[in-house]
């Protein structure tokens, strides 16, 4: 005769709890593209006084089409094109004088799909990320990441600052 409590059902109770937690919780994928918005000001920034060669204008219309510096482009080509514009390795006279002068101007329509907008933003950010990465490898021999010492990160961002200005969107294709 054993004087023991049967622990066999303990597993069932634990399973019940486990399933309860599985159902009520979500494994959150809290990732995204972090952006620093410009502070609010009433007047529009004057982009006219910048030299044309330093401005990389990206327009997205309500049909999710891209117009980059006056020419149509596909999103897949945007990253390479933006990289070439910012770094300007061949010193072409129509691309940016130097990375510190380059400004990306992004303008969309109120009817642009958010998915397209984010893809464009992603490509532009990707272009900068790749440039930072190349520079970090050249200068410090390590890939660019947020784990780099602050001084090194600052040195890289001083050389290639990310300047992305977003203009007030047009309103041609807002859904009714």
């Amino acid at each position: 005769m054993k004087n023991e409590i049967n622990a066999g059902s303990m597993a069932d109770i634990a399973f019940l709890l486990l399933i309860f937690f599985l159902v009520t919780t979500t494994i959150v994928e809290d990732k995204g593209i972090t952006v620093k918005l410009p502070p609010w000001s009433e007047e529009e920034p004057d982009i006219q006084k910048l030299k044309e060669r330093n401005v990389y204008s990206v327009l997205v219309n309500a049909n999710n089409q891209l117009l980059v510096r006056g020419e149509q482009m596909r999103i897949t080509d945007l990253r390479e094109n933006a990289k070439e514009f910012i770094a300007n390795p061949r010193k072409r006279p129509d691309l940016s004088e130097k990375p510190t002068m380059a400004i990306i101007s992004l303008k969309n329509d109120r009817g642009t799909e958010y998915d397209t907008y984010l893809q464009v933003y992603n490509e532009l950010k990707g272009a900068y990320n790749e440039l930072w990465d190349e520079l970090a490898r050249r200068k410090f021999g390590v890939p660019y990441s947020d784990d780099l010492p602050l001084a090194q990160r600052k040195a890289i961002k001083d050389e290639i600052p990310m300047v992305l200005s977003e203009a007030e969107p047009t309103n041609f294709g807002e859904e009714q």
Partner: protein
Amino acid sequence: MSKFSKKRGKADPEVSTASLPDIIFMLLFFFMVVTVLRDAELKVKVVTPFATELTKLEEKSLVNYVYIGRPMPKYQDVYGTKPRMQLGDKFATVAEIPLFLEKHKVKVPEAKRPKITSSLRVDGEVTMGIVQDVKTELRKAGQLKVNYSAKRDPKK
């Protein structure tokens, strides 16, 4: 000889299940730690787009969530099918954003307030109009750190 034959016939071939609860409890605790309780019921449909240049949001307590999407079918009779914004667990208008941010801010210790991030969980099919309005309102309220929620494409 007798040394080996002793056990035969007498042994009870049962596997002890006493440690099974412990294993299950371990699993349970694992899930309790890595997951977060669903805080708000989603009233809008949100399927975040794919992206590659992702950063992770570190501290949960410093994040407030703004959901934008089309109302779920059961709310469509009342709220229509146009994209709407959800703050906390109810539909809201852009004018309610400052109060919402303030309510979250008071719960955060003062030293950490500059690190507060707004996570915009926006459905990929929504048009930019409402997103733009929300962004403008966030800028006016001085909430400049924003994270466009996105996920990595599993197929790539």
